[in-house]
């Protein structure tokens, strides 16, 4: 009985138990004699549980009140600690939430890890789009999949809902949407059962809300997409993005026998859902076998044609993956720094509190009572800091949206990951606890000093690592930006008029439109030149075609990026002419031979040391003749390898042929602000076709900047983190030395009394600070070079051990360290022998 009661009493704080335990037991004993045992037990529980809680709560209240008083008296400590914890938790929560969002979290589709993407690849190159014929054969042969579906991107002009607008549409085979498996919000998805022709549409949630005012009766309505009527059969829920972020609507894709004729007509993307029990490895093996069979069956077109199979989740570039991982590394560095600095702060505070603590011990406070108080303080700091940190993460996450690749079927803004938050909070909490308790452990001062020194070294290491990596990435971005894009984007504006089919299938209709718009635009005051092109460099990175030269085997690398242009394109973008002439009025649909302008590298590759003018080759089913040679352009972006370019006159193509290449981007060279000419251009476009929408109005420089945007966002973040790290390290050094000087006042005083000069005392303190800095810096440089090696792919040829970057980082760190040392050193120098001795 009494044993049970004693155990129950353990719920009380030990101090309370020590004080009153014996008497409580005695009273329990007496009471128990008066009643039955079960009743005694019941009333004991009813008494002890609430009272023990109340006693704990009393102590908590006392501790908090005490903390509040100390913090009010010296807010610096609390604010610094909270800020540091907030930085650590905030940076990590944000960075790892992003990483989780981009790299790890399952895609928002049912059983999304069973969705596979499939591409063709030639000779291990690729991934390349697939032809309908290939897709048909895969579908017939493959057993590993419950279903296969295909899709392709297209653009549609929506007319009749206010001003005409341009939409990104995805054409899907009827089995695709059921395979993805997300149910619609309204109506139905596109299915084999409800699809007979390409005359239906499923709206995205955004489009439904913005253009149809969330009309609940939208299903059944007929809308005109690029001139053709489509019946709306469904609306998708919010958060459904497929196959990538910005898709406005889905329309059916129904193949006709003609679509299957040309096995090299590749324009579709294939998605499959694994059959139950089949692994992706099995599927991959089967697809490889299918590729081998098709190669035997169609030796002409399928020679060396392989099939690449990847999880839908893993469709993310190595560069983008590295960007995110580097950010995580930096955030971890900050977390480590935050922990080190918090530890250091708590240690320093512990020493300055030893007096307070010894007084309280003398007054009878038990050691566990003191430990408990320190515990409460550490937890509270961690909680407050954590709260600020979450706020910080929550406000910074939207800025990280630029790092979320657009090609993933997920929303733009990552949400906070609470597992990450928990991890960072736990780490900080542990640090707080571990080092918050040190004062109660009564370790000698020298041990504490050694611990703090080690922490300062860690801080310097972290900040050097961050500085060097940020510096290397900065050098990389400078290198990239120093690359000539091959055209001048300053003073060029662009806008898009995506001409719809079938209205603009005939070349004559398009040419009429271009001529009317361009003649008008060129006649406007202040416009130097204007032209139409298939797609802008660095935005439209695909559009690759083979250049077939008589007598040259097909196996040789002949891929070029193909663009159709109107006269004046090269002048507008200031792409220099090397030889020959521009495309001009002569080069119309009925004028043979068709004219092509090729880039220097194409000329060099196929006609080295020869004059390419007048040479003929076949591209996009037509024979063309080289009429001019221009400079190369970085079509795919500054950092990437680029195919040579071939430009063909906009009118020199068969009607309805390769409609994906219809020129849609208008480029205008002018120094005037858009306000002065844009209204006239709108009028001109409306005059040429009243139903034609205008979109993507922006300077060309913005398109070029978009090429390096993720890099710049990441660099900015890394730089901010590096600066924070440097500051934390500087504060750490300053704190340590200030404290050491305060502790050693007596020793310094004696030295002074014995004849040491102020300068000597100063340099003694400086030496101590610099010793720690140099130790940290050496470790930091080694770690940084190792880290930089692992992110070599991002460095664009800057060597991981780039001496200039390392020297600059060291110099910055040294300056910060010296600044951190100055105040304590001066204070040491000012110590008077007499005061020091008196105080001691």
């Amino acid at each position, binding site marked *: 009985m009494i044993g049970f009661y004693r155990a129950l009493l353990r719920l009380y704080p030990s101090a*309370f138990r020590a*004080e*009153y335990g*014996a*008497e*409580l037991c*005695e*009273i*329990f004993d*007496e*009471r128990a004699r008066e009643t039955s045992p079960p009743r005694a037990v019941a*009333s004991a529980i*009813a*008494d*002890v549980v*609430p*009272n*023990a809680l*109340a*006693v704990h709560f*009393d102590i908590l209240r006392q501790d908090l009140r005490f903390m509040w008083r100390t913090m009010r008296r010296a807010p610096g400590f609390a604010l610094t600690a909270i800020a540091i914890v907030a930085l650590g938790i905030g940076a990590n929560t944000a960075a790892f939430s992003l990483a989780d969002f981009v790299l790890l979290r399952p895609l928002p589709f049912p059983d999304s890890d069973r969705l596979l993407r499939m591409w063709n690849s030639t000779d291990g190159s690729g991934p390349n789009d697939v032809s309908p014929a290939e897709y048909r054969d895969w579908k017939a042969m493959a057993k590993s999949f419950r279903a296969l579906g295909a899709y392709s991107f297209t653009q549609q002009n929506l007319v009749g809902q206010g001003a005409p607008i341009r939409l990104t549409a995805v054409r899907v085979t009827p089995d695709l949407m059921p395979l993805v498996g997300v149910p619609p919000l309204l109506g139905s998805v596109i299915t084999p059962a409800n699809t007979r022709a390409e005359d239906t549409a499923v709206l995205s949630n955004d489009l439904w809300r913005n253009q149809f005012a969330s009309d609940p009766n939208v299903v059944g309505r007929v809308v005109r997409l690029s001139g053709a009527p489509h019946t709306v059969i469904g609306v998708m829920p919010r958060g459904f993005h497929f196959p990538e972020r910005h898709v406005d609507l889905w329309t059916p894709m129904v193949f006709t026998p003609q679509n299957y004729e040309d096995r090299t007509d590749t324009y579709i993307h294939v998605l499959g859902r694994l059959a139950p029990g089949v692994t992706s490895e099995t599927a991959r093996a089967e697809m490889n076998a299918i590729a081998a069979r098709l190669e035997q069956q169609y030796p002409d077109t399928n020679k060396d044609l392989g099939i690449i199979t990847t999880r839908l989740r893993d469709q993310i570039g190595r560069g983008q993956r590295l960007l995110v991982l580097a950010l995580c590394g930096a955030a971890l560095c900050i977390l480590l720094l935050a922990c080190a600095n918090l530890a250091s702060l708590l240690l320093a505070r512990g020493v300055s509190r030893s007096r307070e603590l010894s007084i309280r011990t003398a007054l009878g406070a038990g050691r566990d009572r003191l430990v408990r108080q320190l515990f409460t303080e550490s937890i509270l700091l961690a909680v407050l800091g954590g709260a600020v940190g979450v706020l910080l993460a929550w406000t910074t996450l939207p800025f990280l949206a630029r790092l979320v690749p657009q090609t993933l079927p997920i929303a733009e803004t990552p949400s906070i990951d609470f597992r990450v938050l928990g991890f960072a909070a736990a780490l900080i909490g542990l640090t707080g606890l571990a080092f918050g308790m040190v004062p109660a452990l009564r370790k000698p001062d020298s041990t504490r000093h050694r611990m703090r020194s080690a922490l300062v070294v860690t801080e310097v290491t972290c900040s050097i690592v961050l500085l060097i990596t940020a510096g290397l990435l900065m050098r990389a971005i400078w290198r990239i930006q120093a690359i000539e894009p091959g055209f001048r984007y300053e003073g060029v504006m662009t806008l898009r008029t995506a001409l719809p089919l079938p209205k603009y299938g005939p070349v004559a209709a398009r040419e009429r439109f271009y001529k009317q718009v361009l003649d008008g635009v060129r006649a406007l005051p202040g416009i130097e030149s204007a032209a139409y092109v298939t797609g802008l460099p660095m935005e439209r990175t695909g559009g690759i075609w083979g250049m077939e030269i008589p007598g040259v085997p097909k196996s040789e690398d002949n891929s070029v990026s193909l663009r159709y242009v109107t006269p004046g394109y090269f002048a507008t973008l200031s792409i220099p002419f090397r030889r020959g002439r521009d495309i001009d009025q002569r080069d119309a649909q009925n004028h043979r031979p068709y004219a092509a302008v090729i880039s220097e590298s194409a000329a060099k590759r196929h006609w080295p040391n020869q004059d390419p003018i007048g040479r003929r080759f076949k591209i996009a089913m037509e024979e063309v003749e080289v009429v001019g040679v221009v400079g190369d352009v970085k079509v795919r972006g500054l950092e990437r390898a680029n195919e040579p370019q071939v430009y063909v006159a906009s009118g020199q193509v068969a009607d309805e042929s390769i409609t994906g290449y219809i020129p849609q981007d208008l480029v205008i060279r002018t120094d005037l602000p858009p306000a002065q000419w844009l209204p006239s251009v709108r009028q001109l476009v409306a005059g040429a076709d009243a139903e034609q929408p205008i979109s993507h109005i922006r300077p060309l420089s913005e398109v070029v900047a978009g090429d390096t945007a993720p890099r710049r966002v990441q660099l900015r973040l890394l730089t901010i983190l590096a600066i924070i790290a440097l500051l934390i390290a500087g504060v750490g050094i300053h704190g340590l030395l200030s404290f050491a000087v305060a502790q050693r006042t007596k020793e310094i005083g004696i030295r002074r009394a014995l004849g040491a000069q102020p300068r000597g005392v100063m340099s003694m303190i400086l030496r101590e600070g610099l010793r720690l800095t140099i130790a940290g810096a050496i470790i930091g440089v080694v770690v940084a070079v190792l880290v930089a090696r692992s992110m070599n792919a991002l460095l664009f040829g800057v060597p991981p051990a780039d001496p200039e970057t390392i020297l600059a980082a060291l110099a910055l760190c040294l300056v910060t360290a010296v600044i951190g040392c100055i105040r304590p050193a001066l204070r040491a120098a000012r110590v008077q022998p007499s005061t020091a001795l008196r105080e001691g």
Partner: protein
Amino acid sequence: MSSSLPAATFHILLSLAEEERHGYAIIKDIEASTNDELRLSPGTLYRSIQRMLEEGLIVESGRRPARALDDERRRYYRITPSGIAAARAELRRLAEMIRIGRERGLKPEMP
């Protein structure tokens, strides 16, 4: 008007105003004086005592009764001047309440 004291605190003060007592004696005394209306549980008693010690309403008494009668574990408590003041303030508050009730024509319920 001062804020009211917790019931347990007030009864402990009243009990100690009479003489120094140890914990169990306080419980017994309160039971006796309230005709078993108020039975303090030991937890409530010692939690109140701890808080009253901190607030300076009572102190531990150094005196012990004759050794033969005393159990070594028992601690005796004595009311302090500020404890007396607190009890008196509470009495005045209650008296004031009774006066107000009478003025409104309410009389205390008779047992």
